[in-house]
């Protein structure tokens, strides 16, 4: 998938969470998204970056544009080489969390976005890809 103007934000500390969501907001603004959608994208990125920091300690958020199908879209890939997720099905259930958090992380992120994909291998890491199309 061709991404134009891709931004890569390494996630190693809580300062990087703020950087990642600000980059997402800027990318969404460039693509002409509404203020509401800019907030949704920034919030989703914040949650994904936080998951990286909490579960894997290190990883990256990659933000790009997708205008493949004639639609304007933002693609965000959150990637880490952490412990991975044992049961994706369980992780996507509202209320499930292994870290004693709110347990809203992934189902919440899924609700904020138009497309949501996750792949994970225990011991190898996790990749979450989300897309938001411009209305």
């Amino acid at each position, binding site marked *: 998938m061709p991404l134009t103007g891709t931004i890569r934000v390494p996630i190693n500390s*809580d300062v990087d969470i703020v950087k990642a969501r600000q980059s997402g907001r800027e990318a969404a603004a460039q693509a002409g998204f509404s203020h*509401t959608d800019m907030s949704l994208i*920034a*919030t989703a990125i*914040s949650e994904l970056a936080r998951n990286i920091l909490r579960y894997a300690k290190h990883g990256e958020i990659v933000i790009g544009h997708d205008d493949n199908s004639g639609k304007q879209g933002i693609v965000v890939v959150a990637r880490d080489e952490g412990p991975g997720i044992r049961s994706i099905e369980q992780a996507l259930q509202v209320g499930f969390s292994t870290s004693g958090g709110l347990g*809203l*992380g992934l189902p*919440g992120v899924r609700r904020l976005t138009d497309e949501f994909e996750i792949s994970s291998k225990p011991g190898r890491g996790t990749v979450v890809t989300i897309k938001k199309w411009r209305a």
Partner: protein
Amino acid sequence: MEVPILKQYHYLIATIQAALTDADLLHLRDALVQRVGKFRSRGVIVDVTALDVVDSFASRTLRDIAHMIRLRGAETVIVGIQPEVAFAMVQLGLNLEGVATALDLEEGLAYLDEKTKTMSEGSSGR
């Protein structure tokens, strides 16, 4: 980025002026819980007008602040949640349950005046 906390009569007003890291939010929480005792404040206003994102961590920390301040004997009101922030919070399933909110600083002050008035009437009646 440290959040300035202003003491005004019986109230503390914390105005968030830019995006905060998790550490900044925890620092704000600790500072408010300390100062509400130091200044014997009856109410706390946290103004989040400048925040463009309130994610799960920020939401949980704001709730913790309100609950801790209540345990210290004072009231908290969160003011200035922007429309798009409210939208994203609801989509994410965050509702700040049990936490008072108001449209802006003015409404927040009115809320605290009302709330602390009944508090002092209630205590003087005993």
